[in-house]
């Protein structure tokens, strides 16, 4: 009874085309924003902010990026780790070279650099499809990591080949490096994620987004009705890489502080982000958040329940954890193959009719 649009009349096209046309959705979004920016930083301690919220938000951003490519445009990519590395190394070099520009512009520029690299590696998508493309994007993954590991210029020729983020400030608060204020870090990342999540939702329903979806659903048909595959596919690669690049930059500069390419951006990273969007729901911005939450939170929660709650031996707990996560993935896919976002949609449909069954 509560969740229904009955009685909400739109008197202008503008109102009808709004991002969240139903009032209740809007209220929920406002509530979420208030909780995110107002209540969460007050309530949570450093452990929660640093070990859970930051990775959750950063992975959400990366997942939104990959979802644009895979979920909206239908191009499966396993190069996410490599593209995140591009973002991280760009922001590192920029922070060293142009610290006066400020952190947020540098993150955006890193995103643009990644977008360029991503477009380049997106070129094969014009010929290769499906799993063949997925495996072909691994070429980008392995090549980029090799490059960052091998060419001294990228890591300023230091002995171990690791990069560490120099401290930078925003409005006088340190936001990168270990001395960074945890709440400021969180607010910065949450702000960026919120802005770009809304932007993604907007792009996806606009002309470009509809072109992407046409390509995804059937590329030949899309071509026949006048969607240009070249533009559509490459723009998807560019926008997706822009998001992933920003996520990589934040991952390095704000969250971890120092990374080595072979471990922080290895192929597991690519798989992890792909898992997030499949579990969360392909072609859904909200799903990206669900997926990231599931794969970031679930293992930690399981671990804490077993180790702190039951006093399970840490190694056994790790094994049980991985089995449980695997079983949950299979279970969720059996219950709802279209991801957590679909469950949410179904729940909303049910709510509209509630309390009546039909």
């Amino acid at each position, binding site marked *: 009874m509560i969740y229904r649009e009955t009685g909400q009349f739109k008197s202008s096209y503008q109102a009808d085309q709004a991002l969240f046309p139903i009032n209740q959705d809007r209220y929920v979004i406002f509530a979420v924003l208030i909780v995110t920016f107002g209540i969460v930083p007050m309530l*949570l301690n450093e452990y929660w902010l640093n070990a859970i919220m930051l990775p959750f938000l950063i992975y959400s951003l990366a997942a939104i990026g990959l979802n644009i490519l895979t979920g909206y445009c239908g191009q499966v990519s396993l190069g996410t780790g490599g593209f995140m590395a591009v973002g991280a190394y760009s922001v590192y070099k920029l922070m060293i070279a142009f610290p006066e520009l400020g952190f947020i512009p540098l993150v955006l520029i890193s995103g643009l650099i990644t977008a360029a690299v991503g477009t380049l590696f997106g070129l094969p998508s014009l010929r290769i499809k499906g799993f063949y493309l997925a495996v072909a994007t691994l070429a980008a993954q392995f090549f980029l990591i090799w490059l960052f590991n091998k060419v001294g210029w990228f890591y300023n020729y*230091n002995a171990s080949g690791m990069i*560490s983020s*120099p401290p930078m400030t925003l409005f006088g608060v340190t936001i990168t490096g270990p001395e960074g204020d945890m709440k400021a870090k969180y607010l910065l990342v949450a702000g960026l994620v919120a802005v770009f999540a809304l932007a993604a939702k907007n792009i996806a329903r606009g002309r470009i987004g509809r072109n992407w979806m046409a390509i995804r659903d059937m590329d030949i048909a899309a071509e026949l009705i006048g969607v240009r595959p070249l533009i559509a596919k490459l723009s998807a690669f560019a926008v997706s890489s822009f998001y992933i690049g920003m996520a990589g930059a934040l991952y390095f500069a704000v969250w971890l502080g120092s990374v080595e390419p*072979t471990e922080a951006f290895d192929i597991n990273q690519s798989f992890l982000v792909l898992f997030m969007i499949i579990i969360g729901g392909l072609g859904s911005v909200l799903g990206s958040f669900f997926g990231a939450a599931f794969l970031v939170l679930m293992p930690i929660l399981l671990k*804490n329940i077993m180790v702190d709650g039951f006093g399970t031996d840490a190694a056994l707990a790790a094994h049980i954890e991985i089995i449980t996560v695997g079983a949950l993935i299979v279970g969720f896919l059996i219950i709802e193959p279209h991801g957590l976002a679909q469950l949410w949609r179904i729940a909303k449909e049910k709510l509209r009719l509630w309390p009546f069954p039909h």
Partner: protein
Amino acid sequence: MKITKISRPIVAMLLALPLFCGTVGAYELTIPTLDYRTGPYAPNGIPFANGYGDYMNMLNARDGGINGAKINLVACETAYNTKRGVECYENTKGEGESGALVYQPLSTGITYQLIPKTAVDKIPVFSMGYGRTSAANGKIFPWVFNFPATYWSQATVFVQYIAEKEGGFDKLKGKKIALVYHNSAYGKEPIRTLESAAAKFGFEFMALPVDHPGQEQKSTWLQVRKERPDWVLMWGWGVMNQVAIKEAASIRYPMDHFIGVWWSGSENDVLPAGDAAHGYLSGAFHQPGGDFPAHTDIRKYVYDKDMGLGDRDRIGEVLYNRGLVAAMWTTEAIRKAMEIHGTNEVKAVHVRDGFEALDVDEARLKELGLPNFTIPVKITCENHEGPGKVALQQWDAKAKKWSLVSGFYEPLRDITGPLIAEDSAQYAKENNVVPRICGS
């Protein structure tokens, strides 16, 4: 200092379990252990974690802890993964009344993460012979200790050993030394040292990277076969070690000219190669074997009561002993901290002072039931690397035993010294660290 972890109340709510009862009591020393008993490197992580844990449990059972204060080991599984390591650190740093007293990060990646973080949280890091080499400079890295020796010292020791076998440093000229390394921050550590040594002694140096995980190394060893280096050094880890030793045996490379870093010299690494591994060398800073009095105590106080972490017959393996020696130095540092500050209720800050004043000589080793087990260690404010001495051990495939085959060499400090100064100065510059002044 009681940081309530939110996870606990949640868990408690979920399970309706009373978690907060009966823990008020005597002061406990909280030592988190970042183990890795799962993942690709688990075979190496397990014996280390067993040795580390068993020794501390033995102290608890035999002496009631350190000077009567019980040790509370908090295990956290990292799977050798940096991100999980960070989560573990954040999760355990406020544990218990004492807070985490010291971290043994057990991976280069996690160590690099913790170096800046612990400097802020004021918790000492004991990265025993791994991690950031330039952390040996105590003026710039007051919170990090990497004694008893670093990778760079070790590389120079290998050069000395080679020189000795070849008949003097002047014979090194024109020789060819290859380095087969794990293509990561850890594996790259010795390259600079070996390059400067090559420039100094006139030998030819070639570096051959192997990507993680290193199951397929044919091309690396074909290159070794083609270039025929006189000596091969290896900075390997995990499955890479086993495959490398096997490949070296297959191309019939003389095993006694093949030297691994101390992480490439455990039973796990040589056993899969069988008899072919006979004569393989590796670095070491402690004795192998399980017949020291401390081992006897571990069997008696821990394993006889069924509290052992591992298999009884694996006590005394190389990596087990490495965990044990790490635990020994850690507990000695805590003991020292208690002595300096005159209290049993030490905190992380005090433990750091204990590390900095650590002095475990042969007499003390004997008291601890580890006579001749390792080198005497004395730490000062400037020098966090300690003695830096390394010996070589050799594998006997018939007896299935490692044994030390050389004395402990002094590192070539004229090579490592400038490199450490340079690298630590760069870190200080990039991170705005002001070197502290030692000796007041």
